[in-house]
Structures are given as C-alpha cells and as structure tokens.
C-alpha cells in the first residue's frame, strides 16, 4: 500500500499549488509547461546551473532528500520528503501554502487514478465510504481541470468520483470536455448515482460533450424501489436512477451497474440480476462489490455486515445468472479464499493501491498475486472467518473465463 499523501518541506515562492513532477528531459519531449513542472532530482545530484541556464520559468525543484537550495535557484525548492516512495516522476502533486502535507492527485503507473469531484451528494447511502458534506467545493472544478492538463498522455484510464459528480453541472461537463481534448486515448470512468440523468436535458448535455470512451458507473441496489431507496436514503431514487439508466442507454452511453454486497442487498441479489438482465441488458459491465469498511459503513456495521462466506450462494446465483447470459460480470473487493473456486474467474484485483493491504494469513498463500486482498481499513471485525492461505496450485483458474473480463476499474 502506497499512501496518497506525505509530508515535505517547501521553500520560496508558491504562486500555484499543483505541479507535475518530471525530469527536464521528459518535460521537453512531452511539452509540459515549465512553470507547472517540478524538476525531479531523486538523488540530489542534478546540476542546477545547467538546468537554470536554459532560461525556462521552472515551477520548482524537487529532491526527496535534504539537499539544500542551490545558490543559483531562486524559485520554489522542495525537499525532505518524509516518505520518499510516495512521490515519483510523472506524478501530479498538490502542496499546501501553509503546512507540510503534499497530496498525490495523480500517480503514474497506479492501477487507477481518480479525480475527486465534490463532497456533496443528493443521496446518503447507508454504507457510503465517503460520507458527503454539504459545503460549496466548486474550487475542485478548477483543480480537476488543472490535474487533467498534467496527466500522462498515455494514461489508459482515469476515474472521477465524489460525492455525486453530476451535482457540479456544467463544471463536470467542462472537466469531461477537457479530458476529451487533452487525453483522447484515456478511458474515463465516472461514478454517479445516475439520478440526475432522469432529466433528459442534462443527459443530452453530457452526450453533447462527445467523449469517445466514457463509462458511467451507476449503482442499483435492489429490484424493489423501496429497498433501493432505503439503502440510499432517498425516496424516489430508484425511479430516478432507472430512468437515468434508460436515458443513457437511449443515447448509447456506456453504463456499468454497481451493487454493493451487504445484509440489505444480499437477499434479493439473484432477483436483481434477473431485473438487470431483463430490463437493463445494455449494461456493459456489472460489478458485485464487497463492502468497504469506511465512513457510514462503519457507523452502520450492525445492519450491514455479513460474512462473505454466508452469502456465497446468493453471490454465485447473481454472478452465474448474468455470466451465462453474456453479461460481463465482476466480483470486486473479495479475497479469493472466501470465494468458491468457480467464482474466481470473476474476481478482480479491484482495490486501489493506496488502500490495499494483505493480512498475516496471506503470507503462505499461493493465490496472493491474483487476489484483491483487503481494504487497509478493514479491521479484525470486518474480516471473514474464511480467510486462509490457499495452497500453491498449478492452475488457479480452472474454468475458461466466461466473461471477457473488462479492464477492472478500482474503487
């Protein structure tokens, strides 16, 4: 697990806070604006005078160690990174004018990178891992635009999460449009509750942006409106989300359907799979996701927690129902040791690097390099009684994959 923040020192002027960490050589070939680049000096031995001589308005100098400012360099000087592994070349970082914390907004080579759109949300899901706050954070639009302009051109996928990103309205559309022009080869994956798409005008506006590779990942927790509405704590949400999914389908937008597995969703999981196939067969992907023990999930543990071993049958029912009918289906966030062997083909390594961990039992496990592992936030009370090392085996995936196994998107 590699955290998304660390502490460091910065000295000198700080006219902006978001920077791309690059070597001068890479900056030249990729064309990043010099003023937004921090010169990457991993071992503190780069020749300052040579780089200074090129006359470019460099954003600053970053050296993880404690090399002191070279006399020639009058601009921003960043050093003494507390956890030097956290920052690397290609990353986009945010510094705090007052304070030592630095946040990684984009990490080169990570399984998944997400832009954080807003803390606001119009739902209040009982298991929300990122409880919403009703504060105006429209400044994040500018930040996202800033980050998008610094993401590697060859990045394969980028996520947008929240909160509910569609609450940003035109601001979100601006971010999507920028991704489209700035990152034409990057798949965009946006987590949304889909409710706003019930409004045909909004849907048309999002379609009008014309992004070439955009997936809307939208949760549907039950086939019964009252069950879904209870889980998201919003009456009428089921109707809005289903209407929204239809609006998106009407415009041939790609949608993924996400189901979080817990005590309130498990009893109708098979019936939900049936509902999805009969009514939403256009779904490009269905993700059945283990609970992330963060935020409200912790608060509501009593009403939500089920040991995955105790919902194996329901999970297999839903998963195999969909797979047999050609729907691309994945299991997220559940370790292989709690899944029956024939479901392994659906399990993805879905947990983002920065919150992914393993437990002591994983030490002698033969399937660890194919396993999702666990959320780092999962304490003992969130661990299945089924966790155990799996003996090494010749063919850990005995059945030919039935689903094409879309590139998994992380949480």
């Amino acid at each position: 697990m590699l955290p998304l923040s660390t502490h460091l020192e910065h000295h000198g002027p700080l006219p902006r806070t978001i920077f791309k960490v690059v070597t001068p050589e890479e900056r030249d070939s990729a064309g990043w604006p010099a003023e937004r680049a921090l010169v990457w000096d991993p071992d503190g031995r780069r020749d300052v005078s040579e780089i200074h001589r090129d006359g470019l308005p460099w954003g600053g100098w970053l050296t993880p160690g404690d090399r002191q400012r070279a006399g020639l360099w009058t601009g921003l000087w960043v050093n003494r990174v507390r956890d030097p592994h956290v920052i690397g070349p290609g990353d986009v970082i945010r510094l705090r004018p007052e304070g030592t914390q630095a946040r990684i907004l984009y990490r080169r080579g990570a399984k998944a990178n997400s832009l954080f759109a807003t803390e606001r949300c119009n739902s209040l899901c009982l298991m929300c891992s990122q409880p919403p706050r009703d504060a105006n954070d429209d400044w994040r639009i500018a930040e996202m635009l800033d980050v998008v302009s610094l993401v590697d051109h060859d990045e394969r996928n980028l996520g947008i999460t929240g909160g509910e990103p569609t609450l940003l309205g035109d601001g979100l559309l601006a971010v999507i449009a920028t991704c489209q022009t700035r990152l034409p080869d990057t798949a965009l994956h946006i987590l949304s509750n889909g409710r706003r798409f019930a409004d045909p005008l909004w849907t048309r506006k999002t379609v009008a942006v014309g992004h070439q590779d955009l997936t809307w990942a939208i949760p549907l927790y039950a086939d019964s409106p009252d069950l879904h509405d209870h889980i998201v704590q919003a009456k009428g949400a089921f109707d809005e989300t289903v209407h929204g999914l239809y609006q998106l389908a009407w415009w041939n937008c790609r949608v993924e359907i996400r189901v979080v597995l817990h005590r309130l969703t498990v009893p109708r999981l098979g019936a939900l799979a049936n509902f999805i196939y009969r009514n939403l067969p256009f779904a490009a992907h269905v993700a059945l996701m283990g609970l992330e023990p963060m935020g409200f999930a912790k608060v509501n543990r009593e009403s939500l927690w089920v040991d995955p071993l105790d919902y194996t049958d329901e999970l297999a029912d839903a998963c195999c129902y969909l797979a047999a009918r050609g729907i691309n289906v994945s299991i997220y966030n559940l370790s292989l040791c709690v899944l029956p062997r024939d479901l392994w083909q659906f399990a993805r390594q879905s947990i983002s690097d920065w919150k992914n961990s393993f437990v002591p039992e994983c030490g002698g496990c033969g399937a660890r390099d194919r396993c999702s592992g666990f959320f780092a936030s999962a304490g003992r009370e969130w661990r299945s009684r089924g966790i155990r090392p799996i003996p090494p085996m010749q063919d850990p995936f005995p059945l030919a994959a039935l689903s094409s196994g879309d590139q998994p998107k992380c949480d």
Partner: protein
Amino acid sequence: MNSRPAFRGPASFVPDGGRPYELLPFRFARLPNPPGTVLATSEVGEYAFLTDQKFQDFVGRRLRADDHLYRDLHARHFLIEPGADPHLDLIATQYRTRKSFLRWGPSLHIFVVTLRCDHSCVYCQVSRRSPDAARFDMAAETMGHAVNRLFESRAPTLTVEFQGGEPALAFDRVKSLVDMIEERNASERRSIRFTLASTLHLLTDEMLQFCREHKICLSTSLDGPAFIHNANRPNGSHDSYERTVEAIDRARSIVGAENVSALTTLTRLSLQHPKEIIDTYVSLGFRSIFLRPLSPYGFALRSAHKTGYPMSEFVSFYRAALDYLIDINKRGIVIDEAYSTVLLNHILTPFPTGYVDLRSPAGAGLGALVYNYDGRVYASDEGRMVAETGDDRFVLGTVVQPYQALMTSEAMQWLLASGVAEALPGCSDCAFLPYCGSDPVYHASRQGDPVGHRPTSDFCRKHTGLFEVIFGNLARRDADVMRVFLAWISRRTPAQVSRAGYMP
C-alpha cells in the same frame, strides 16, 4: 467524520400504505406438471411459478408489499404501484426489444432454384419433378429480379437459403445467384449468410469447394439410423442412409464440420425410437439435432394416413427425447435440440431470435420471402408447398413486382390480418403467447381461414405441448437441467456453465 446522521428505517420508503397495487396485463396456465403449479407470464414474457394459494392472493390483491413474491412480481412487471413508477417504461422497452425483428423487414430469403429431385421421400411436401425435367429450374431473368427483391429488404443481416427440389441438380443456378448477390453486396455491404438445403448426395467435390469458398452452410436431412432413414427417404438404390453419411463426411472434410447441419423429420416409425435417432446424431458427431414433426402441407397430406400421427404422440416423443438429451448432456455429451433452443431463447431472454417461423406478427412475409423457380413469390415455404397443389391464395405476386407491391398484395393483407397472435382467439389469453407465434399460412391451409381454430389446431397442440414440457422442466428448478438449457442458449458446453445461477 463518522458522526451518524439520522438514517431513516425501511418503513419510510414503502409505497403509500393502504392503496392496493394494480394488476398489469398478464396470462396464466395451470401446468400439468409439476402438479399444482400456476405459470404466470407477463405481457413482455417474464414468468413466475406460483402455488394456487399465492396466485389467488396475488389476483385478490392481498400480497403484502414486503413479501418476496410481491417484490418478484413487481420487478417482473405483473403489478404496478400507485404513483409515478418507471415500470411502464421498462415494459415498453422490453416490448420493443422483443418485437425488434419488425424493424428491418424480411431477413430470410428462400430461393427455390429447382423442383427436380432424385429422392421420393414419403413425407415430401413438394410436387417433386424427375431429375431431367429442366424446365423446373429457375430462369436467369427470374434470378435477377429475385436478387433485386432481396436487396429491397432493409435488413442489415440477410440469410439466403437455396432450396429445392435438390439444389445440387441445378447447382449452376446456385453459383449464378451467389455471384450476383456477392457482386451486388460489394456496394450494399450487408451481412449475408448462405445456406443450402440438400441431401448432399449429388454435391461433387467441386461444388463443395464452391460452398467453402463462398461460406455456404449445408443443411441436410438425416432421419436417424438406417432402418428409419431409408424407410422415410427412399432413393432409387435403397442406400440413402449410407450415401447421406458418406456425403456428410465428404462435405465436412471440405466445408468444415461446423458448417454442416442436419434435421430430422419424424414419421410414425420415428416416434418409437427417440434414443436411436439421437444416438445416431451423437455418433456422427453432430452438436445439434432438430426434431421436426411432419409438416402436413401440400403433397405430404396424401401420405399422412401412412406416416402421420396425432400431435399428442409427437409431444410424448419430444418429452422423452428431451429428457434423454438432457441426460446425455449432463454426462458430458454436447448436443442441443434446435427447436428447444429457439423456445428457450424466447423464454429465458428478452431478445427475439432469428427464427422466423415462430413470431407474432407472423414471420410469413414480414420475416421471410420465398422466390419460386417459376418466378412466383410466397410469404413462406409452406405457402409455396400449398400452392404446388393448386391453391393459389398464398401467392404474393411475382419477382418482377417491387417489394412494396408484394408486401401490400391481397394475399399478404389477408395473411397479416390474422398474423398477430395477440389478437387471435385462443392465443390472446394463452400463457405461452409471449414465446409463441402465429401461423396464418398453416391455419389457412388446414382450417380454411388464417385465423383458425386453436382447440383443433395441430400448430397449437404442438406448441402448447412443447411449452408445457419446457416450463415443467423450468418449474422443477433442477440446477443441472438449467445448466444444460443455459448452455444451449449461449452456445457453450454444459461444463462451461459451472452453475445454473438464479432461477426465476
């Protein structure tokens, strides 16, 4: 951050209390097997099995909103809740999807290139002509017009089927048609699949090579083991079975095994031998068998007293054959029954199939057109067979007339007025309606008018019987049977379907 907001309990989200749910249009049947099972089907073909008591509770609006059955029936569009409910949109979309075959016009185009044939099958529906009667071949001018009609259909995917007679006796016609169609398709850019119905006996290596080069799939008749096949399909040398098996081998070696299929026509003799017929197919390496009852059309009616049987006997045969097929599939032998696969697709998926003979509105004309060797155009192969006996009511016109004229012809209007099963007496309230079709040609030819009379209709007896067999299997919720069915509809092997999954 983890401060607990005032979460509301489930009761706050239940629909307004006290107002009863509304029933949506649905149909039902009491299945003979398993006893006591009520099958309910929604307007768009979702289904539910209920006990009689629960069924009474449902229609009496006594189900509670938190009952799992209530939730099942709501999600499957049997009932609707008061207030704004997206389910009407969902139903409309499912309906549009199920009937989406209507969007494009006919996709199956049958070219009867000749009436000549070297066989004299006991159940032949066509007035076959001796092999040297060349005036029963399709003329060049006719072919040109027919190809124009083919491309007037807007369907992006077209199937071109060459029929006879025995098309191998007029293979030059097949070649010309393929060349004309491919040339035309260079600019039309449709997806075109060719099939050729033949005994295969007379297909030379050179002809097979042509089939391979132009990706023509071969469909032949194989009625089972030699004693059945030779009795049903006599040729001059009394060796039709042996020659068919030899020809299948030869054809497979040139066009590839996956491009050679066979179907079985069942006579009274066949009905005694379901296992022997299936075993013959398995031993010859077929992955599919199509068990067809006799089609009592045209000239086949003349021999019906000798070869025919009541439809109930076919249904009994079918039940035994299906049980045997399921059994051997469970043991690892991969073979499906093609008609079951069509019915299962209609039942288990929200999508239509490419199968044009079981549709409402009828596939006749809307899904298929037949260009006869003499230039006459029919709405279905059966219509053509009836016409061979002198009954011209099914002639839409001739190949020189444009598509629009053919489709608005009197014959077409006469058929289509009775081509919507949803509006036919005996069909409109049938539980199997969403999966079935209308067959105005059959009813017109057998019962005098295209509406027909269901209680005495063999079309209805056959399909009611087959649906009861299949739904009987589904109602038992046997996971292994379901795995076999899912394998059939998804073109996988049962071993690749590790579990049945949720069974509604």
